[in-house]
C-alpha cells in the first residue's frame, strides 16, 4: 500500500476524534503500521484506561526509538513469538475493557460497595456455618427454653431451647442457596425462552409470550403454594417452585433485548457470513445481554429469599428441624409477645440480606448498563 498525504490526513482526523473521546492515540500509529515487525509498537501505547493497567509500563521516548530500530531487524519468527505473547495477554485486555470500566464505576458507589461487602460476608457465613455456630442448630435443650439473649446464647434460645445464633447462621445457608439456585434456574429458563421468543419471532414468540403472560398472571404466593403442595415440601422443590416463578421477568427482558439486537447490522453481517442461530445467540446476543441478566438475577435473589421466608412461614418450605429464617419466624408466632427477640432476630437477618442484594443489584445496574453511563 502506498503512503500518500490524504491517508495521513485522515489518520490525523481519526486521531483527533479518538482523542476527543478521551482515547489516547499512539504517537506514530500510521508510520509504524507498515513495518510489521514492530512488537514494541503494540505495547508502548498508553491504553485508553490509563489507571486501569498499571502492568503496562510506559516506555520513555528515547528507549522506544531505540527499540523500534532494533525491532525493524527482528525476524519473522520473533514477530510470531510476540504475537503469541500478545495472544496470551489478550484475555486480560478483554477483561480490562468493559468490566474494568464497570468496576471503576461500581467502585465509586459507596452504598454498592458496602452491600457487596455484606453479601460477601453472608456468603462466607453460609459457607463456614459449622465453624461459626457455637452450638448444633438442631440440638434441643429443654432446660433452656425461650431464654433471652445472653453471653451464653447471643441471640437467645427458641421454644425447644435451640441456640438462635446457630440457627440464624445455618438459616443463612438456606436463604442464600434458595436465592441463588432458584435464580439460576429462572435465568436458564428465562434466557432460553426469551432468546427463542425474541430471535425466532412469529409463532414461537406468540406461544412463549402467551406462556409468560399466563405464568405472570398467577397470584405469586398462591402459585408457589400450589407448586409446593403438588411436589411436596422440601428444599429442592422450593428451588424449583421459585425458579418457575421467577423466569417470566427474565424472559421478558431478554426477549426485549434480543428483539432490539436482532435487527442490528452486526448480526446481519453474521447471517450474511452464514452464521447459524446458535453462533449468533452465543457470540452476539449473550454478550450483549449479559449486563441485563446479571442485574436481573441480583434483583431477583431478594425476591426469592422473601418468598422462601413466606413459604416456610406457611409451613410449605423448609421442614423442621432444618432451620430457615422464615420458618423461625413461623415458629416464634405464639411467643411474639413474651419473647419478642425470637421473631425479631430472624426478621432482621432477612431485612439485611434482602436489602443488601437489592441495593447491590441497583448499584450493578448503574455500573453495567451502558445506557446509564454518563
Amino acid at each position, binding site marked *: *500500500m502506498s503512503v500518500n498525504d490524504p491517508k495521513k490526513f*485522515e489518520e490525523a482526523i481519526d486521531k483527533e476524534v479518538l482523542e476527543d473521546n478521551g*482515547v489516547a492515540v499512539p504517537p506514530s500509529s500510521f508510520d509504524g503500521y507498515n513495518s510489521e515487525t514492530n512488537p514494541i509498537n503494540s505495547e508502548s501505547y498508553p491504553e485508553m484506561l490509563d489507571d486501569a493497567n498499571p502492568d503496562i509500563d510506559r516506555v520513555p521516548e528515547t528507549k522506544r526509538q531505540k527499540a523500534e530500530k532494533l525491532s525493524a531487524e527482528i525476524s519473522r519468527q520473533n514477530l510470531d513469538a510476540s504475537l503469541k505473547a500478545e495472544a496470551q495477554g489478550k484475555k486480560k485486555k478483554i477483561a480490562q475493557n468493559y468490566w474494568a470500566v464497570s468496576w471503576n464505576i461500581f467502585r465509586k458507589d459507596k452504598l454498592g460497595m458496602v452491600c457487596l461487602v455484606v453479601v460477601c460476608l453472608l456468603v462466607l457465613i453460609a459457607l463456614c456455618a459449622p465453624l461459626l455456630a457455637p452450638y448444633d442448630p438442631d440440638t434441643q435443650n429443654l432446660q433452656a427454653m425461650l431464654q433471652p439473649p445472653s453471653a451464653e446464647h447471643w441471640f437467645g434460645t427458641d421454644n425447644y431451647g435451640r441456640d438462635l445464633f446457630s440457627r440464624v447462621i445455618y438459616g443463612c445457608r438456606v436463604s442464600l442457596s434458595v436465592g441463588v439456585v432458584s435464580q439460576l434456574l429462572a435465568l436458564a429458563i428465562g434466557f432460553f425462552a426469551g432468546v427463542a421468543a425474541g430471535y425466532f419471532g412469529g409463532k414461537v414468540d406468540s406461544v412463549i409470550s402467551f406462556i409468560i403472560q399466563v405464568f405472570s398472571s398467577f397470584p405469586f404466593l398462591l402459585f408457589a403454594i400450589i407448586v409446593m403442595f403438588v411436589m411436596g415440601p422440601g428444599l429442592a422443590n422450593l428451588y424449583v417452585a421459585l425458579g418457575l416463578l421467577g423466569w417470566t421477568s427474565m424472559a421478558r427482558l431478554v426477549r426485549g433485548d434480543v428483539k432490539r439486537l436482532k435487527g*442490528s447490522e452486526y448480526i446481519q453481517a453474521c447471517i*450474511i457470513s452464514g452464521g447459524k442461530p446458535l453462533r449468533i445467540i452465543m457470540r452476539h446476543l449473550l454478550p450483549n445481554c449479559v449486563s441485563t441478566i446479571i442485574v436481573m438475577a441480583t434483583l431477583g435473589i431478594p425476591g426469592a429469599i422473601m418468598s422462601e421466608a413466606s413459604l416456610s412461614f406457611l409451613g410449605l418450605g423448609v421442614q423442621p428441624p432444618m432451620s430457615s429464617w422464615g420458618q423461625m419466624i413461623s415458629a416464634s408466632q405464639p411467643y411474639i409477645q413474651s419473647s419478642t427477640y425470637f421473631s425479631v432476630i430472624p426478621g432482621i437477618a432477612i431485612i439485611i440480606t434482602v436489602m443488601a442484594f437489592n441495593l447491590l443489584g441497583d448499584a450493578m445496574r448503574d455500573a453495567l448498563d451502558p445506557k446509564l453511563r454518563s
Partner: protein
Amino acid sequence: MASFDEKDIVLKVRGLTKHYPIKKGVFGTSESVVHALENVSFDVHRGETFAIVGESGCGKSTCGKCVLRLTEPTSGSVMLDGQEFTQLKGNELTEARKKLKLIFQDPYSSLNPRMTVADIIAEPIDIAKTYKTKEERNRRVDEIMEAVGLDLSYRSRYPHEFSGGQRQRIGIARAIVLEPEIVICDEPVSALDVSVQAKVINLLEELQDRLGLAYIFISHDLSVVKHISDNVMVMYLGHMMEKASKDQLFAKPLHPYTQALLDVVPKIGPGRIQDKRILQGDVPSPANPPKGCCFHTRCPQCMKVCLTQEPQELEAEPGHIVACHLFDKDLAADQKEPVAINSAEAAQL
C-alpha cells in the same frame, strides 16, 4: 470503460420483486402491500462497480438486501455464478454466501461492541472454517488489517475506541476477508465526513484492483457514484428507471427522472439551483403506487399513455436501457399527447 462480455457476468438479477404486506384487522390478514421493489433486473460483471442510485425510500437498500437474502424476495431470480441463489438451502447457501458480502452504511451499529477487532474481522473465516490452525487465522487477519490500513496493534481493541473512518475500515476488512466476488456497499460513505469519504472510496477502489471484486454500490450521492462506478442504475419508487454505463448516463441522461436528478447536483458555476428543473410534489406512497408509469405524477413530460400503461424496458441506445414511453417508437400519436399534471392533482390520485 472496458467492455464486458456475457461470460463475465457474475451476478444476474431478473425480475426481483419485494412486497411487504401491511397487516390490518384482528387476525393480521394482509389487505395491501408496500411495493418496495418491482421487477428489477440487472447484471453485474466481474470486477466492475455497479451503482444503484435514487432518492431515499426508492428501494435501493431493499434491492441489496434481497440479493443477499437478508430479506427474502417475493419473486424473481438471483443467479450467482450461474447458480440460482434464491433457491439455495443449508450448506449450499452457506457456501454460496462466501461469494457475497455487504458493507454497511452505519459504521457505528455494524460492529458488535463486545467483540475485539480481530474477532470481528475473523468472524466470516471462523464460520466458514477456512483455516485449520489459529496461527493461520490470525495471520490472515493481520494480512487483511494491513490491506485496509488498520494498525496491527488495534487487534484486541473494541469498536468504540475507533472513529467512523476506522470503523468502516474494520467493516470493509470483515467483508473482504474471505475474498468474495461481489461486495454490496450499502451507502458505505454517507455516514462519514467528506475527507474520510474520499479515503474510504480510494480504499475500495484499491481493493477492487487488487482482488478483482465487483461492487454493487448503493448510494444517493451522485458525485460519489460518478467517481467510482462503471455502470449505473437509477431507481424510483422500487422501479428501474434507467440503466447505462456511467459515461452514457451522466453525459446524456434519457429518462426525465434522471435528468431531474442530475440537474439538482450542486455544481460550482453560474446559475442558481432554483432555476433548474426541480421536481414538483412528493414521492407517492409505495403502498399505493400510481397506475401506469410510477413517475407520471411528477414527470414534466407526462403523456396520455403514461397514465395507464406501465413502460417497458427499452434499449434506446446500445447499452442504454430506459423505462420510459418517450422512447417507445410504436406509440400512436394520440397516446403521445402531453398531459399537464400538477402536484395538487397528483396528490389526489
